[in-house]
């Protein structure tokens, strides 16, 4: 390998690391933005967009209190959850495609990372032996069991169209194809949005701001956490929301993302990425404001509908877009 290729490889890795850092640093900002918009929509006094950072910093500084019968698993879980989410963030192109980190984990592995984080969160919920923990774990695993196949079906539709499961390459393929009206993408977009809503614990499947234990899903699992553990888990949840937003952007509206490490295209990439994610956040806020949380037993229907959309996306991609 000559030195030129070597240095370009180094640049690529540095860019990837930088992008991952931006990703995890910006995630609380997005959460703050969503919260602020929501308050404005609902005529409430809004906190600053920086509030999530302050919350995280405060939680990090706090002394740890653990339940008396918490095992090592309970203490290890926040790190595993954060690590898995971080890895997922590293694989998703935010500003620029062609990342070496995207090769570590393709789309299916990305889903696997979320599953890993969820698995350990649910176990940690059961660790203390409280009723709420069990309730949260049971509900979360059921919802996930229905959301995951829909998510993978969406992934399959896109991967079969793009001919790859590598996220960078798939984004590149969508960019190269230009404007093509694909019914399968339309269905996949809605399915992915619904899955994202369910997986990130948003309305109508879960309510991130609820204070009623009986209606909780995700929050019920992490009731016993505090201090830096809670900070890591909350941060991971914010990163996850951002990953889903960026995934939707990458698949369906990738225009503007940088395709080389040129300063101009990088700047465009940053601006375009920020704008698109902010727009998606607005849509999420509107969606959350106009909808009410559904009953738990209706959540399977919601996800069943997402699965149907994903299935239709798959069917149309084969039936209508490739022909015989």
């Amino acid at each position, binding site marked *: 390998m000559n030195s030129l290729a070597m240095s370009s490889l180094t640049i690529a890795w540095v860019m990837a690391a930088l992008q991952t850092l931006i990703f995890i640093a910006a995630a609380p900002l997005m959460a703050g933005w969503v919260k602020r918009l929501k308050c404005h929509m609902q005529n409430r006094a809004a906190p600053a967009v920086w509030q999530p950072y302050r919350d995280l910093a405060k939680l990090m500084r706090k002394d740890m209190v653990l339940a008396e019968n918490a095992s090592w698993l309970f203490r290890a879980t926040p790190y595993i959850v954060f690590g898995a989410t971080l890895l997922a963030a590293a694989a998703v192109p935010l500003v620029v495609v062609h990342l070496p980190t995207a090769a570590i984990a393709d789309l299916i592995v990305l889903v696997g990372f979320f599953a890993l984080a969820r698995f350990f969160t649910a176990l940690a919920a059961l660790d203390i032996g409280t009723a709420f923990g069990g309730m949260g774990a049971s509900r979360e695993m059921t919802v996930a069991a229905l959301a995951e196949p829909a998510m993978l079906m969406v992934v399959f539709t896109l991967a079969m169209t793009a001919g790859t499961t590598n996220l960078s390459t798939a984004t590149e393929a969508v960019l190269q*194809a230009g*404007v*093509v*009206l*694909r*019914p*399968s993408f*339309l*269905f996949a977009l809605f399915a992915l949005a619904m899955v994202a809503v369910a997986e990130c614990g948003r309305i109508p499947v879960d309510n991130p701001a609820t204070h009623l234990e009986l209606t909780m899903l995700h929050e019920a699992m992490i009731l016993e956490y505090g201090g830096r553990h809670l900070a890591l888990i909350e941060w991971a949840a914010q990163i996850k929301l951002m990953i889903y937003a960026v995934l939707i952007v990458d698949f369906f509206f990738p225009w503007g993302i940088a395709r080389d490490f040129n300063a101009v295209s990088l700047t465009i990439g940053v601006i375009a990425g920020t704008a698109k994610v902010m727009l998606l956040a607005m849509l999420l806020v509107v969606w959350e404001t106009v909808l009410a949380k559904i009953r738990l037993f209706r959540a399977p*229907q919601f996800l*069943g509908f997402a699965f*149907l959309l994903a*299935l*239709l996306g798959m*069917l*149309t991609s*084969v*039936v*209508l*877009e*490739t*022909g*015989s």
Partner: protein
Amino acid sequence: MELTTLGLYNQAIIVFAALVLFTSFVMLAQPRIQPLIYTFAWQGLLLAVVIVLAAIVSNHPHLYISAALTVVLKVGLIPWLLYRLSIRLNMNYETETITHPSMLLLSGAGLVVFSYFIAAPIVHLSGLATRNTIAVSIAVELLGMLIMIARKTAMAQVIGFMSIENGLFFAAVVSTYGMPLIVELGVAFDVMVASILFGVFFFHLRDSFDSLDVSHLNRLSETDEAMPLPEAAEVKQP
């Protein structure tokens, strides 16, 4: 045929065809009467858009008449009639319990695959740009059948029937750019008459059974043992 080789209009036809298929699925699992009627109207509208697009692509002006007919009948008149009926019969807020909706939807997806399989030989013969949608049009017909089989209320069955008709129309447009106008007019007239006849049928059904659940018609079977009538059951109670 690869989608990327088609022009934008043809791509749009395919997108709207997919949406027509989607409305069929929605109708399959929609338990409430009024949204069901709205969905049916939407299907008609989407179908009309497909026809207009096909007319633009193929330069067949008589398709505009078909599209107008579709809009008038299937988006305007028939949904309006059904809507009026649902209000007159006081059933606009009724919901029907569908047993195993997920199984129903999955079998619907199976039907799409099946119609794809069935359509493959026809598709090979056709040279039209819209040939890929033939499978979808067959699927819409079969799904209409499935609605009629799986749903219990008479209203849903009527909508299923109308949706079969939509499928037929759709198939004609995408495989040969429409039937002769006279045939289309005849079919449209038939459908309108049918919708009026169904209205009459609804009233009779309600008068006889106090409900629009067609499973009550099972009592007509002579081989079955006579079901105890609700009144009879009540009398037995002390």
